[in-house]
């Protein structure tokens, strides 16, 4: 069955078509949710909410742009909506930091470790890093999405990079000490 047909059936709330769509895209969207959430459980919660929104809003999908892109945007928005609804605790000592370039060595690094590092970032750092570094949103767009200034997004990004760098360096150090 073609994707277009599945989408059309989904728009009519066909349960089988919904199930098919879920099978096709759940692993990709789950990856998005894992990157944007703090742990596996939250990621599953977000995935669930994202798919419910997707099926509810299926009729609004206008075949403009890729369907997968549309799904991913909904998944990211689901996470962001929760962020907005909860409100975020003002993070203290938030001085603006210059946009710094952070470089790390690239050994054969474990994906799960990278994922875990992102998940362990403080909430907003994680969002900013994901949006900027992995999903290529601009600081301006991110600032708008999170209702903060671009100064803050830049500072958050820089801090996120520093934390991740530390984690990666520690990881290598551990690897080296184990191999020695």
């Amino acid at each position, binding site marked *: 069955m073609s994707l277009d047909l599945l989408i059309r059936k989904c728009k009519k709330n066909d349960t089988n078509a919904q199930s098919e769509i879920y099978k096709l895209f759940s692993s990709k969207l789950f990856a998005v949710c894992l990157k944007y959430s703090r742990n596996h459980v939250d990621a599953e919660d977000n995935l669930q909410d994202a798919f419910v929104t997707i*099926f*509810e809003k299926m009729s609004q999908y206008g075949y403009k742009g890729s369907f997968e892109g549309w799904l991913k945007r909904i998944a990211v928005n689901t996470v962001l909506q929760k962020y907005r609804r909860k409100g975020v605790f003002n993070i203290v000592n938030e001085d603006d930091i210059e946009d710094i370039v952070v470089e790390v060595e690239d050994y054969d690094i474990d*994906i799960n470790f990278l994922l875990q590092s992102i998940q362990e970032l403080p909430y907003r750092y994680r969002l900013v890093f994901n949006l900027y*570094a992995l999903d290529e949103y601009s600081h301006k767009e991110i600032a708008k999405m999170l209702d903060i200034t671009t100064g803050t997004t830049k500072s958050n990004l820089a801090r996120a990079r520093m934390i991740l760098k530390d984690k990666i360096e520690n990881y290598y150090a551990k690897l080296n000490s184990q191999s020695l």
Partner: protein
Amino acid sequence: MSDKKNIDRLFKEKLKDFEATPSNSVWENISIQLQSIEKGKKGIPMWWLVAGVAAALLLLFTISQVVLNNNTNPLQEIIVDEGTIKNSENTDLQDAINKKNTLSDSEQKNVSENLKSESSNFPSISSTTNTGSISAQNDNLTKHDNENRNVTVSNNTQNVNRNTYKINKNELVKSSSEKSKNDLTDNTNSNLYKDKVENNNIDKAIIDELLKTVNNTSETKETYKIASTNTNVDENITESEESNTITENYKLSLTEEIAANEDENIEDIPKEEFDRWSIASNIGPVYFNSFGNGSSIHPQFNNNSKTGDINMSYGISGSYAINKKLRVRAGINKVNLGYITNNIIVNNNIVYDNIGGSDSPGLLGNIKLNEAVENISFISIDEFNFLHVPRILNNFIESSIDQKLGFIEIPLELEYRISNKKMGISVIGGFSALFLTDNEIYSFFNGVSTLLGEATNINNTSFSANFGLGFDFKMSDKFILNLEPIFKYQINTFNNTSGNFNPYFIGIYFGLSFKF
């Protein structure tokens, strides 16, 4: 083998094709949620239908009560008037017969002659021509007839014929007086007494007229017969009356009898009827606080100062008056409560794990923190002095924890009126069931209130013991303004509290009630 790489690029490249399979429960949950959404779409009209029908019925019932009440009042008055007239008529009959006994001998002979001819119509009665049966029957007479009885007994010795007549008469008296009593007790309407007092004056005139017509025409005899439901017996009375001339004396004794009736009526007439049902809406400020030095959040805050919040409560209630003093009422209210624990230091990214144990002051067992603030920790200013001050100096903010709760309250209360003037006063006591609807914990600092999470130690269902006073002011017969300060002591609302945490709330409820 290795080269320096931009960290963003590293993550992007590595995670580009990353995919992961969620557990099966995710799809199950999604499909359940989708089904409930579908049901919800269909379910909403059903729910509204039920609610709509209930509301419509209530409205209809209310309106019908008002309309019917207005319509039935005149009807009731008419019935009462008839009853009163009938009653007076009966008294008149009775009196007429009484009178006959006191009439002069010559007149009595006339009467007995007349009766003699008529008593043949009552074989059963004329056969009981002995004093025993007379006295037996007399014993059944009401006190009302005591005078008659004496007369009857004395007359009894004189003439057998007259005895026959008296048996007749006593029975008539009995039946008529009983009837008048029945009429009285049957008419339990509140207007009866008033109407009666008013009508008695009119009655005299009516009775006089009636009696005149009785003398003059046989047609009125028929109407009389219908008016008083005693059939044959009454007919005989009227017939016997027909043969009598009514003297001035008679008229005078009539007024006496009416006066006597009035006295009797005061005792017999049941209490005034009143509107038993009422519905009320209410709204008012509620103040929440607790007795004692406890905390629902953490033992370290037991001695922190706490500020009760003033919130709103609103709802509707219905009540039923068991009697004029006592009402039972139930309702449904939305009530919001809150209180602030002051002097707390809030820290970001510092965990007091060096203190050790699950009861570490930094972690609040009774609060489930939101993801956004998972790294926040709290400590009372008192505890703070004992910690490693330099480590956290840079990062602390003095703040407070603001706990906000919302409940649906179902009160069931008794209201006892101690003053029933235009301005009424009641004592109110009862209990409420409280169903938790909102449970939020905020922290307040830098002038911004931030949602932290929710308390985990609040029961979904709890109770309160209620006690208060009610003041009401009658705007009209139907509408009443209420003011009710009520104290509610909460029972079983919190688990796992520390110290003496005994929460209560006080509400000052303003309301408008409608009686029907």
